[in-house]
């Protein structure tokens, strides 16, 4: 694509000035109407029960001015740093620098992640946070198969997380099966439920699909709450066994790993083990997804996202293709759920609310649908960033929400929007996000 001459971009920018002012004035007007009654007039019952009121026009003026200024800033940001053609405004030197960073970002992140337990060995808080981030990276990668590759909007992903967690919790507490036996079972059971969800929603698209998957997530949660005899209902499942190092427990007993290795026992050992466990599971998810993308099934998923009718005309069974996408995504969700159960030692339905589904979906969308690195970065930003703002206390949600709005203005197709081809003849060229479809359900 030929770069647009600088002059044109400059012209379009100045031409937008009246547009920006008009838009901001409109926003300010809406704010004025809303706030004049909500904030401008206060009423209260007086001493004799009569209605007293007083006005606060100063506050209204401040709010309206804030909205006016804010929308100017947002519009300016929208025009200068994004969304469409954002790269064209970036100088080539910065661009090549960014592509250099892009090439080495993933390996650098991986090496850093491997070293996290070494660097932060004495900081329990950071290790716990890293485990949490990695759990969401894994969930994001799992959901990415369904939403990012196959283009099926799934709002009930937490259901499979719950199935995995309860599968492990119940099998381990009732039958005493070890984590390593239960892990594949949790994945298989979650995949089974993924197929079960898949069947009724095969004919649905877009909004309808989203609503049914949302309902499915709620159904699973309600069944868990109400099936008291099996799941313990709202009380949850306590006393879930901790994972063992291939049969050797990680405690301070004589059979424990520390005693066998002849080193002093420390509770951090288990945290470090859990860290590497979830890292291995997440990397397995990543590896399998990358491999699947280059296999016919993965290409069929992406083709399904691009154009379902064309897929059928080429003899692709869209039913099984959709079901395998649901099953694969659900299986990874089930693995993550089993890990969650063994890490917490206690699970209850409260951990599997719609908010979790929304958070994982937000990670996938923010990361750039279909991009593995983008999802990892988004999970880091969403989970880690949320912790970063802890110092802001009450304003944490506000700042966090604002940051998300800004990111979506800057990069409407996610942090990493372009798509890498799965096969090439001479040179793999990244495909611009403008061409890649988001799927239609």
């Amino acid at each position, binding site marked *: 694509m030929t770069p647009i001459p600088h002059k044109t971009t400059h012209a379009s920018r100045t031409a937008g000035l009246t547009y920006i002012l008009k838009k901001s004035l409109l926003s300010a007007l809406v704010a004025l109407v809303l706030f004049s009654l909500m904030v401008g007039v206060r009423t209260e019952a007086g001493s004799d029960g009569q209605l007293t009121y007083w006005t606060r026009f100063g506050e209204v003026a401040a709010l309206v001015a804030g909205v006016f200024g804010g929308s100017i800033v947002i519009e300016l940001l929208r025009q200068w740093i994004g969304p469409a053609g954002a790269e064209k405004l970036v100088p080539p030197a910065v661009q090549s620098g960014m592509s250099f960073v892009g090439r080495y970002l993933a390996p650098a992140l991986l090496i850093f992640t491997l070293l996290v337990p070494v660097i932060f060995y004495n900081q329990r808080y950071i290790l716990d946070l890293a485990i949490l981030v990695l759990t969401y990276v894994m969930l994001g990668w799992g959901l990415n198969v369904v939403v990012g590759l196959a283009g099926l909007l799934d709002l009930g992903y937490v259901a499979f997380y719950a199935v995995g967690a309860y599968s492990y919790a119940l099998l381990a507490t009732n039958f005493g099966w070890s984590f390593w036996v239960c892990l594949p079972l949790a994945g298989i059971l979650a995949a089974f439920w993924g197929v079960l969800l898949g069947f009724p929603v095969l004919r649905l698209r877009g909004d309808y699909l989203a609503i049914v998957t949302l309902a499915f997530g709620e159904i699973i949660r309600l069944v868990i709450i109400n099936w008291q005899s099996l799941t313990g209902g709202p009380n949850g499942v306590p006393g879930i066994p901790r994972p063992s190092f291939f049969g050797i427990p990680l405690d301070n007993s004589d059979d424990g790993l520390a005693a066998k290795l002849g080193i002093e026992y420390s509770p951090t050992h288990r945290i470090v083990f859990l860290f590497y466990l979830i890292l291995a599971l997440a990397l397995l998810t990543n590896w*399998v997804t990358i*491999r*699947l993308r280059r*296999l*016919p*099934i993965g*290409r*069929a998923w*992406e*083709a399904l*996202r*691009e*154009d379902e*009718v*064309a*897929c*059928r*005309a*080429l*003899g*692709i*069974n*869209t039913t099984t293709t959709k079901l*395998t996408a649901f099953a694969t995504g659900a299986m990874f969700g089930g693995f993550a759920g089993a890990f969650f159960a063994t890490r917490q030692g206690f699970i209850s339905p409260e951990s599997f609310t719609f908010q979790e589904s929304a958070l994982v979906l937000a990670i996938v969308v923010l990361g750039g649908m279909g991009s593995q690195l983008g999802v990892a970065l988004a999970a880091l930003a969403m989970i880690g960033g949320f912790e970063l703002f802890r110092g802001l206390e009450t304003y944490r949600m506000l700042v966090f929400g604002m940051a998300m709005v800004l990111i979506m203005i800057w990069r409407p197709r996610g942090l990493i929007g372009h*798509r890498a*081809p*799965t*096969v*090439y*003849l*001479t*040179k*793999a*060229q990244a*495909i*611009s996000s403008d*061409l*890649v*479809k988001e799927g239609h359900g």
Partner: protein
Amino acid sequence: MSGDKILSVDQLTMRFGGIVAVQDLSFSAERKKITALIGPNGAGKTTVFNCITGFYKPSGGSIRLAHDDGKIIALERLNDFRIAKQAKVARTFQNIRLFPGMTALENLMVAQHNALMRASGLTFLGLIGAPGYRDAEKRAIDLATDWLRRVNLLDRADDAAGNFAYGDQRRLEIARAMCTEPALLCLDEPAAGLNARESAALSELLLSIRNELGTSILLIEHDMSVVMEISDHIVVMDHGVKIAQGTPRQVRDDPKVIAAYLGADEEEAVAVMEGGS
């Protein structure tokens, strides 16, 4: 009409509610020949196509496909993707339906899905990188490369299909359909939106598909220069029924066809038909 028939449509009827889009239509397409289905707008051509390729279920009648090995397949009983998978009928669309976010090569690889799926042992062999699958993938890439060369898009193999010019997209869609290795290729207005030079190149491509590969072709087309030049047999439809059929020469001189195309004004119609030859 005699000869070896690959497709026999018999008494095909398609109703949408009370509207009869196609009524008692019977025609056949010969093996290794190009058959054209023409008619004015709204004549029901695309409906016939959708019935043949499984996108609609016919209200009545039969559609029989005879493979080279003598196997007869009842297309009206197959649905959806099975027409392409089992009956080996490939199609293109009036409004191009490529996978715009995938490269030209990827588009052609998706077309070989079923063969590759078998080779990858339903994914499991492929996941562990079995040599059998790697060979199959290499062959698939070779076939795709061959088709990219045929449609003159080899140098753009790694570009996103959505970035292609209109004429290139049309050719790529034909190449994609051919990568399914079909017995019958159905083309819905392949020359729509092409300029004269591109239309000529298209005619050449379709003739080479017929002559070199022996693939039977059924096409809907409005561009008379293409139809008259390459068709072996033409079926003319109007208002859901067949009004004429025969060689290009016979159809061009048929007063019923001329009347259908341009009302009763024969002189003008003759001018159009002649202009196309």
